[in-house]
Structures are given as structure tokens and as C-alpha cells.
């Protein structure tokens, strides 16, 4: 019996040594299983040829090669990947953002110099970097079962905004905590979508075969946020939210029928809520003005800002007006930062910003499809799309393709809230990318989340 155990342990000993040399701990079990299958196949073949078991095992191990070489080669494949190019693009955008805010403070008409925009920006840039680093280091799978917690947090945040927040410009609520102002609309949009993504991911993992009834029940958790945004007159937020919500259903391969029913229900409830509000007339007028602009019927009031911003773009020239001449923008919202940057530093910098932005987005999308683990791939794809939405709205608004909407470019705004959310989201993407080759594709409980691109 002891001789039999000693003979059996020769293969185990070999595999143990290989396993111990592999740095990616979560890959060890699957690598072990694969090597054991190979070794036992080899042993069986040799024994069929008449070899004794001990000789067959020794032969099998000899054919495998050196333990150190095998482990080394596995470590080259299953190593942490660092997204240097992506980090470089983020750094460029943060630098440009800082320059832009400096330009806002020093070049724009008005009393911006006394508002210490740059100081505030630098403080929140610091916070953002800390959040980015933390999000990059936390295993993204830790968020998997936090969906309902985040959903309740977002609902609570929204409720707090309604109760104790300050309404700003007739839309949206801000909660002041000392020197910090929380933009409830911006924060809750992302939090709700992130929460719903996690909830649906968890649900799909538990129930891979969804009945149409289940498919229709799940989207209803998405209806409540629609009502919250419409009630607080945050129309841009509700559009972003709806797009994100449909995207989440699409990523999780809900049937087209469920997608359409969910989207139509959400939009219908949103429209009905919208029409019940006193402010809807103002929004209708804005939409009419944009429609007139598209048709070439230029009206002074409604499209004045758009034309003025476009004029500033044209006046900038390749090298900009510098920081002496002031960009005459009545109130440079964060969505106008790009205009300020281009006016101050020229088209060349504007092009650089666009290249960095589009390059970053391209990297996000391409990298998401390189992630084998389905939950990670879906989450990264969702964040990629979520980051793209404001880019389309911002640039689309500046060129008149969509109504002016207040969308800010990612990382290019002086809002503290957006900086924190974007850095958090991009930190999660960094973590997913870093781990993409150190995690097995299939995990015991989560391998059945259906994600676009790979199927079941």
C-alpha cells in the first residue's frame, strides 16, 4: 500500500512543483487539472505498451520537461498587464483639463478668478487619483454582489437630495457637505446603472435560461430611476440613464422583445412624468429651437449660445489666443471647457484632446473584448459605452447635431463629482485589464453570465 501511494505521488509531486511556481494563483487549479489529464493519459499509454507504472510515470514526467521551464512559461502568459498607453491618455486629459481650468479662471469674463476653480480642481484631482488607485487595486469581482447595496445607496442619495439638497438652475439637486457639493443627478445616474448592471449580472448567473416573464420583471428595477430623474427635471441624466439601461439589457443578451418592452415602458413612464411637470413647456421650447436650427431657421435667442461657441472655435486658429485675450463666454459651464481650451491654446491642442479621448475610448472597447472572464468583459464594455455617451452628447451639442445638453467630456470638467466618478470607473477598467490574463475564463458560479461577444 505504501509502495502504491509512493508511486502515485510522483505525478502529484511533479504537478505540485509546477503549480507552486505559478504566480497567478487563480490559474493554478485549471492548470493543474490540464497537466494531470495529460500525465495520466501518457501513463496509461505507456502502461498499455507493457511498461510498469513507476517507469510509465517517470517517462511521462521526462516527456513533460523541466518544472521550472514550464512554470516560467506559464508565468509569461498569465501575468499582470499594465495599461501604460491608457494611463498615458488619462494623464494627457488630466493635464489638458488642468490647463483648461486655469484658462477659465484667467481668461474668461466674469469673476472666475475669485472662485478658485483651479484650487478646487487640483484638490479633487488629488482625490480622484486616490480613488483611481484604490479602484485599480480592488479586485473588480468584489463588486459583484454589491448591486442591491448600491441601488439602495443611490435611492437614498436621491431622496436626500430632494429633502436637504439645493436646487440649482431649476434642475438637479446638490447636497453641500462643507466645501464639497454633491451633484445628486450625476452621481445617482452612474450609481443606479452600475447597481443595475451588478444586479442583472448576478441574476443572469443564477438563471442562465431566462423566461420571458423573468426578462420583463428585471427591467422594472430600472423604472424607478427614470421617475427620480424626471421628477427632478434632470433630462440629460434621464437620457443617459435610459441609454445605459438599454445597453445593460443588451450586454446581458435579453431578448429583443424584452428589450423593446423594457425600453418602451421606461420611456412611456418617463414621458408621462415629464408631461405632468410645470417645466416641460420650457424643454419643448428648447427642442423646438434646436429643431429650427437643424432646419436652418436660425432664431437669435435659443441658438445664440451655440453659434457664439462655434465662432469661438473658428476664431481660435491653430495656436489659440493665449491666456491674455479673454474668451467671451457668459457662463462657462463644464460642457464648454473644450471651447475654452481650444480658444486659449488652439486647434492643435483641441485635436490632441480629441485624439486622446478617442484613443482612450478605442482602447477601452478593444480591451474589453480581450477580457476572457465574462463578468469583467461585460462590466468593462458597459463602462466603455457609459464613457462614450457624454462624448457624443458634448461634441454633438457643440456642432449642433443634438440640442445643447450640458454633457461634460470625461475628465475635462471642473466638476468634482464627475472627476470622482470617472476616475472610479476608469480605475475599475484598469483593474479588469490588469487581471485579464491571471483569471480563468470560467468560474464555478459566474461562468454562466451571458455577455455579448462570446455567447454562453
Amino acid at each position, binding site marked *: 500500500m505504501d509502495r502504491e501511494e509512493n508511486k502515485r505521488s510522483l505525478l502529484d509531486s511533479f504537478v505540485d512543483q*509546477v503549480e507552486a511556481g505559478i504566480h497567478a494563483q487563480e490559474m493554478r487549479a*485549471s*492548470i493543474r*487539472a*490540464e*497537466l*494531470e*489529464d*495529460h500525465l*495520466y*493519459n*501518457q501513463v496509461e499509454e505507456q502502461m498499455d505498451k507493457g511498461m510498469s507504472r513507476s517507469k510509465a510515470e517517470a517517462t511521462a514526467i521526462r*516527456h*513533460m*520537461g*523541466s518544472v521550472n*521551464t*514550464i512554470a516560467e*512559461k*506559464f508565468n*509569461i*502568459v*498569465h501575468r499582470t498587464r499594465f495599461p501604460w498607453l491608457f494611463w498615458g491618455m488619462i494623464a494627457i486629459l488630466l493635464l489638458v483639463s488642468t490647463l483648461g481650468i486655469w484658462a477659465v479662471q484667467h481668461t474668461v469674463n466674469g469673476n472666475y478668478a475669485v472662485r478658485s476653480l483651479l484650487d478646487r480642481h487640483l484638490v479633487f484631482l488629488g482625490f480622484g487619483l486616490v480613488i483611481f488607485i484604490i479602484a485599480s487595486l480592488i479586485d473588480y469581482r468584489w463588486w459583484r454582489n454589491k448591486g442591491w447595496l448600491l441601488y439602495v445607496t443611490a435611492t437614498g442619495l436621491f431622496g436626500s437630495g430632494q429633502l436637504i439638497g439645493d436646487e440649482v438652475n431649476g434642475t438637479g439637486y446638490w447636497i453641500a457637505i462643507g466645501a464639497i457639493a454633491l451633484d445628486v443627478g450625476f452621481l445617482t445616474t452612474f450609481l443606479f446603472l452600475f447597481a443595475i448592471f451588478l444586479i442583472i449580472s448576478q441574476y443572469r448567473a443564477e438563471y442562465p435560461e431566462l423566461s420571458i416573464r423573468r426578462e420583463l420583471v428585471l427591467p422594472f428595477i430600472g423604472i424607478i430611476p427614470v421617475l427620480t430623474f424626471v421628477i427632478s427635471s434632470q433630462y440629460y441624466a434621464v437620457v443617459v440613464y435610459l441609454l445605459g439601461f438599454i445597453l445593460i439589457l443588451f450586454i446581458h443578451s435579453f431578448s429583443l422583445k424584452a428589450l423593446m418592452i423594457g425600453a418602451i415602458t421606461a420611456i412611456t413612464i418617463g414621458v408621462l412624468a415629464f408631461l405632468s411637470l410645470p417645466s416641460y413647456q420650457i424643454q419643448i421650447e428648447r427642442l423646438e429651437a434646436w429643431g429650427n436650427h437643424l432646419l436652418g431657421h436660425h432664431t437669435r435667442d435659443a441658438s445664440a449660445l451655440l453659434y457664439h461657441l462655434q465662432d469661438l472655435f473658428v476664431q481660435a486658429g491653430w495656436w489659440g489666443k493665449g491666456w491674455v485675450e479673454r474668451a467671451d463666454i457668459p457662463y462657462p459651464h463644464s460642457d464648454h471647457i473644450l471651447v475654452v481650451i481650444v480658444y486659449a491654446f488652439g486647434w492643435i491642442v483641441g485635436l490632441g484632446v480629441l485624439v486622446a479621448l478617442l484613443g482612450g475610448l478605442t482602447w477601452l472597447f478593444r480591451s474589453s*473584448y*480581450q477580457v*476572457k472572464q465574462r463578468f469583467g468583459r461585460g462590466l468593462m464594455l458597459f463602462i466603455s459605452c457609459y464613457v462614450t455617451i457624454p462624448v457624443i452628447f458634448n461634441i454633438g451639442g457643440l456642432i449642433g447635431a443634438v440640442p445643447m445638453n450640458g454633457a461634460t467630456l470625461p475628465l475635462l470638467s471642473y466638476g468634482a463629482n464627475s472627476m470622482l466618478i470617472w476616475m472610479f470607473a476608469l480605475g475599475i477598467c484598469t483593474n479588469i485589464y490588469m487581471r*485579464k*490574463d491571471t483569471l480563468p*475564463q*470560467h468560474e464555478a458560479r459566474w461562468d454562466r453570465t451571458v455577455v455579448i461577444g462570446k455567447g454562453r
Partner: protein
Amino acid sequence: MKVSKEMLKGSTVMLVLSMLEQQPMYGYQLIKRLDAQSNGVFALKEGTLYPILHALENEGHVEAIWSEAEGRARKTYYITDKGKKQLQEKTEEWKLFQVSLNRVIGET
């Protein structure tokens, strides 16, 4: 006659992908078929095949599924469309190399 490690190293990916293009295989099966089809010329160190397969899987050139066979877990690899495209490129590269080499050797 065996070929040198350096020559084999440069063509391993092409060999693995061309085997998988014939049919899906698990690692041991692939090694044996390769050995048989090449009359023993392409005899890889067996343990080093698996990192190559894992690298191809990471790059999206192959996919794999786990199943149970003979009481053990078994990982079977399939070539993907991306892998077929890679194989085609490698094959064309090899043909160019072969033609050019033959031209040089022929001239000497």
C-alpha cells in the same frame, strides 16, 4: 532526424493552429497527432505546449471548453476565426520564407 529548437520555436504557433484547424483537440491528443503526422520530427517538450495554448487563448486565436473524460476534467481547444486568420498569415509568411530560402540554397 530532429530539427533544432530554434527552428521549431519559430513555427510552433503555426503547427498548433494547423492541428486545431483540422479538428478540436485537447493537449495530449494534439501532441500525439503532431508527432504522428510529422513522423516524429516535431516532437515538442510536452509541458511547454500548454503555455502556448494558453497564450493563444489569451490572444483570442483559440477558445476552450472543459468537459469530463475518463473521470478527469479535460480542456479541449477550438480554433477561432481570428485564429484561422492568424494561421493563414503565418502560412503565407512560411511559404515566402521557404521560397526565399530555397532560392538562396539553390544558388549556392
